[in-house]
């Protein structure tokens, strides 16, 4: 059978199983991977819909860099993963583009960067860059490919274990950090786009090729692929800002 037709045929079979499982309110586990540099907040509307509509929906979220998540997927420990697309995907991983996310620089509101419309790599090199302790993230890959001078302030003492750590270090004036436009950021931190035209990360949803999708996975992938991500990322940032503002 032609591969394209076979894919459509498999999709049709999955659709039948999906509707039948929904009707009989079958158990619906979903094991989902996510890069530490992508906030789970962007998934909230999809996860809410699954929770509202699918009986016995059981979600497990696992954080990890892309390579580690792909290994888990190929081993059958994860059903899908939402990641910043790496340079090379394993052959057996299917991917669907959700949106393109622009890289940004986080700084204090009083920092000189906050007055700029965008920050060039050479200007970034003049500052103390805050790093993440976990290697292999897309933020690491970005810094590695930006034309930053060898003797730049990249050799920094400050390193955070997660995004909250890094944000607090920015707020404390310990340096600046790269992040992405879709990431929610606490109030009191300025966000400035990076000027480099390649400073974009494609955010993709992935699943293992050739492996039958469970009804819950099929539903999750449909919701993710049907979604209009242009507004979704705006909603994510607004929701985070409102949430922080309402804290006593």
């Amino acid at each position, binding site marked *: 059978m032609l591969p394209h*037709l076979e894919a459509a045929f498999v*999709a049709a079979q999955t*659709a039948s199983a999906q509707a039948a499982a929904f009707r009989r309110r079958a158990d619906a586990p979903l094991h989902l991977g996510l890069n530490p540099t992508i906030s789970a907040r962007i998934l909230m509307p999809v996860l809410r819909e699954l929770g509202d*509509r699918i009986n016995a929906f059981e979600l497990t979220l696992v954080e990890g860099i892309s390579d580690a998540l792909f290994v888990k997927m190929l081993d059958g420990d994860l059903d899908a993963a939402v990641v910043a697309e790496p340079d090379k995907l394993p052959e057996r991983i299917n991917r669907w583009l959700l949106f393109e996310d622009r890289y940004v620089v986080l700084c204090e509101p009083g920092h000189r960067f906050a007055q700029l419309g965008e920050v060039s790599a050479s200007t970034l090199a003049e500052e103390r860059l805050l790093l993440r302790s976990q290697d292999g993230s897309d933020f690491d890959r970005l810094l590695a490919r930006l034309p930053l001078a060898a003797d730049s302030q990249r050799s920094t003492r400050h390193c955070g274990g997660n995004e909250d750590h890094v944000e607090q270090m920015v707020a404390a004036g310990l340096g600046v950090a790269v992040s992405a436009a879709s990431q929610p950021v606490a109030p009191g931190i300025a966000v400035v786009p990076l000027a480099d035209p390649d400073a974009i990360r494609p955010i993709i949803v992935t699943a293992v090729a050739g492996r039958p999708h469970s009804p819950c996975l099929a*539903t999750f992938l*449909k919701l993710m692929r049907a*979604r209009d991500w242009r507004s979704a990322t705006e909603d994510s940032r607004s929701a985070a800002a409102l949430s922080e503002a309402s804290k006593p």
Partner: protein
Amino acid sequence: MSLGDDLDKIREHGAANEKIRFAYESMVGQLGRAEAAGRALKIGDTMPSFLLPNAEGRLVFSDDLLRQGPLVVNFFRGNWCPYCRRTLEALETALPAIEGTGGHLVALTPDTGSHFAETKGRHGLTYDILSDVDGAVGLQFGVLFRAPEPYRELLASLGIDLEERHGNSGWFIPIPATFVVDQSGVIRYAFVNVDFTRRAEPEEVVDVLRALSGRQNACG
């Protein structure tokens, strides 16, 4: 003026362009020779249940809709198609009459993402547009086909990238079709025409719904 009259005007305009005319005649001819429309579900067949996302990110289950009344299922190619756009708008005009019979209307497209989401707002539609991701439901209804090469080339020349819109490289599109399904899930009306410039008249659909409603009332 009927939907058919509107579509005639669009067809005449398209026929004036040799490239469009060639691709159209080639595709319609190929589908006709393959008797593609004959593979679609027919009156008396049972509709497969489906669970698809709508433009608001909510899941729509066909069984739930059928519990409330008969269902009109419309397959369209995408808002890149002028015939589809006009048909969607004509269905919106007919919506009060459709709903007046107790019926519901859904329109399915293989479009995903922003292309799918903007269809509703751009054309002022109030009924559910559903994303038939990978054309699975279209295949179950027997209306899915792979666009032949000349037609793919035409669409590409017009900047219409179905790979990007669908999230797959199959270039599958539905034969535009309209089905009316009664509450037991049985198809009572089927309009399937390989000539994508011809669509079901909304008035005809409403008449079928009224007949179903009349039968329902007669049975008590």
